[in-house]
């Protein structure tokens, strides 16, 4: 009933009486993420004066976060089973190179590029799923392998070349607005809504939680654990294909470096949103909040003059801190 799998986890309940009271009233487990957003928002606004807290800047944050959110939805499903996919950025790179050059050479019409990118991403994800479930390679290493191999493929294929024209349709996905928000944000929200439905409202979502919680329990039932686990990597790959389209549209170009470093943002966002790194609990709403938190942090860091390298330092440390906090609460 009501919130289904999303809120049935004891460990979801945040520590502290305030958090406990909140959980009791709302049934939502991600108070900590919300508090972090409010605090950070106030701090960044205080430091930057009036450049951060403007509607225009909020749209900038959301547009940048749209690609993160698309990927974070898939990562939430993968992580809920106790897996992880660190090859997401590299999958984005491969799809961008192949589909980008395909469109530039006129082999792929723009309208077909959309299903083609998603399908290609799904294939790349299926390879991850195969390695994890059939070969039994631990997810971290299976996707570390493809993280390197996929990027290597993109670099080999493209070299230092770049596709610098994109069809209007693709550019529109990355840059146009619809009802006051970027199209990319609408796409990301739609993906998040579908992810929420899958996770919270279907037997599939419940199986993911069961697998992450106790794989042996799931294996003792009629659940086809391997197929279900593999499917999460396929979904993650398909979403990487979609993210590649949005990114190509936004940048109106494609190169072998596309998507580099994305995986760090995604994993940080998902973990900050309350998904347990070792599986068995996650919420899609928490992931949306985690993505916004990361997007806001990054934007704030840029506004306060911190460079790209400082951002990476902070992101990396943030992942460690978030996981350490999760383990303490256990």
């Amino acid at each position, binding site marked *: *009933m009501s919130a*289904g*799998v999303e809120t*049935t*986890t*004891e*460990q979801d309940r945040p520590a502290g009486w305030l958090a406990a009271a909140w959980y009791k009233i709302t049934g939502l487990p991600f108070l900590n993420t919300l508090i972090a957003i409010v605090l950070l928002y106030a701090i960044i606004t205080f430091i930057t004066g009036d450049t951060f807290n403007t509607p225009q800047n909020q749209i900038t944050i959301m547009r940048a976060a749209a690609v993160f959110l698309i990927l974070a939805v898939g990562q939430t499903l993968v992580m809920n089973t106790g897996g992880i996919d660190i090859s997401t950025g590299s999958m984005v790179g491969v799809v961008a190179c192949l589909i980008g050059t395909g469109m530039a050479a006129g082999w792929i019409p723009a309208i077909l590029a959309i299903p083609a990118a998603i399908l290609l991403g799904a294939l790349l994800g299926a390879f991850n799923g195969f390695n994890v479930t059939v070969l039994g390679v631990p997810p971290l290493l299976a996707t570390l392998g493809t993280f390197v191999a996929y990027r290597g493929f993109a670099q080999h294929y493209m070299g230092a070349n770049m596709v610098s024209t994109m069809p209007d349709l693709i550019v529109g996905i990355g840059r146009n607005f619809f009802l006051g928000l970027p199209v990319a944000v609408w796409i990301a929200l739609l993906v998040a809504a579908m992810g929420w439905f*899958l996770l919270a*409202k*279907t*037997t*599939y979502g*419940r*199986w993911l*939680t*069961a697998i*992450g*919680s*106790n794989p*042996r*329990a*799931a*294996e*003792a*039932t*009629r*659940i086809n654990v391997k197929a*279900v686990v593999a*499917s999460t990597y396929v979904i993650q790959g398909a979403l990487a294909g979609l993210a590649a389209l949005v990114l190509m549209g936004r940048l109106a170009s494609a190169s072998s470096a596309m998507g580099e470093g994305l995986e760090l943002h995604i994993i940080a966002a998902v973990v900050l949103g309350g998904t347990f790194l070792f599986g*068995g*609990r996650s919420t899609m709403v928490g992931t949306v909040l985690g993505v916004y938190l990361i997007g806001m942090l990054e934007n704030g860091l840029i506004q306060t003059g911190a460079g790209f390298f400082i951002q990476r330092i902070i992101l990396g440390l943030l992942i460690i801190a978030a996981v350490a906090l999760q383990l303490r609460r256990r």
Partner: protein
Amino acid sequence: MQEAAAAAMPLVEMVGLEKRFGGVRALNGATLTIYEGETLALVGDNGAGKSTLVKALSGVQPPDGGEIRLKGQPVTIPSTRDAGALGIEVVYQDLALANSLDVPGNVFLGDELTRTRWGWFSVPDDRRMLQETEATLERLRIRIPDPRRPVGTLSGGQRQAVAIGRAIRKPDITLLVLDEPTAALGVEEVKKVLGLIGTLKSQGQSMLVISHDLEHVFQISDRIAVMRSGRVQGVVTTKDVTKTDVVRLIVGDIGTGVAA
């Protein structure tokens, strides 16, 4: 009880089961009959072959040789799914429960009642699953104050009840196998679980109970089968023997002269 057992129908017959692991003969011609409606306890030292026998019955590790008959019909049980299809349900010692899911979520895991028929992506009918779970717990005379809580927060006895509830939920269950149901439980919890087994017994459920604890075995069983070196060395009627007799059988102090 011996007369009653003799009069009852054989439910499951295991005849001359063999299982080798390399040079080790884990099952060496094990033969055992379980009658309808009885509670048969299976005891024996570590390594006597109890769990190998259960694994043969549950489809986890099919035997190399011998025959299993269900209600007189020879059957093969190559997988746990086949065991389930034959109505053989095993509740394991380590209680394969998903701690994040609530009680109905565990009881129906992989077998969810749904409001839509969209395969993997069906929408679970949580209301009905909760009702049926409560009915099952009622049958077990077990009260779990809030079945919507994740089972990770329940006590050991309650978790055992969830695991058993999961096994007996299906209407066509023929044999319930309980693997060390009282291991790792506190005194009060043990009482509850023994009471639960008594409830099932009064409802005519045929059970095979593997246990190390002779105290518990004597409280719940109709007959006791003793395994040693991969064979069933003897089967005795519980009310006719003492613990000392059973211990002797376990360690091999006397021959197989006791009614086999």
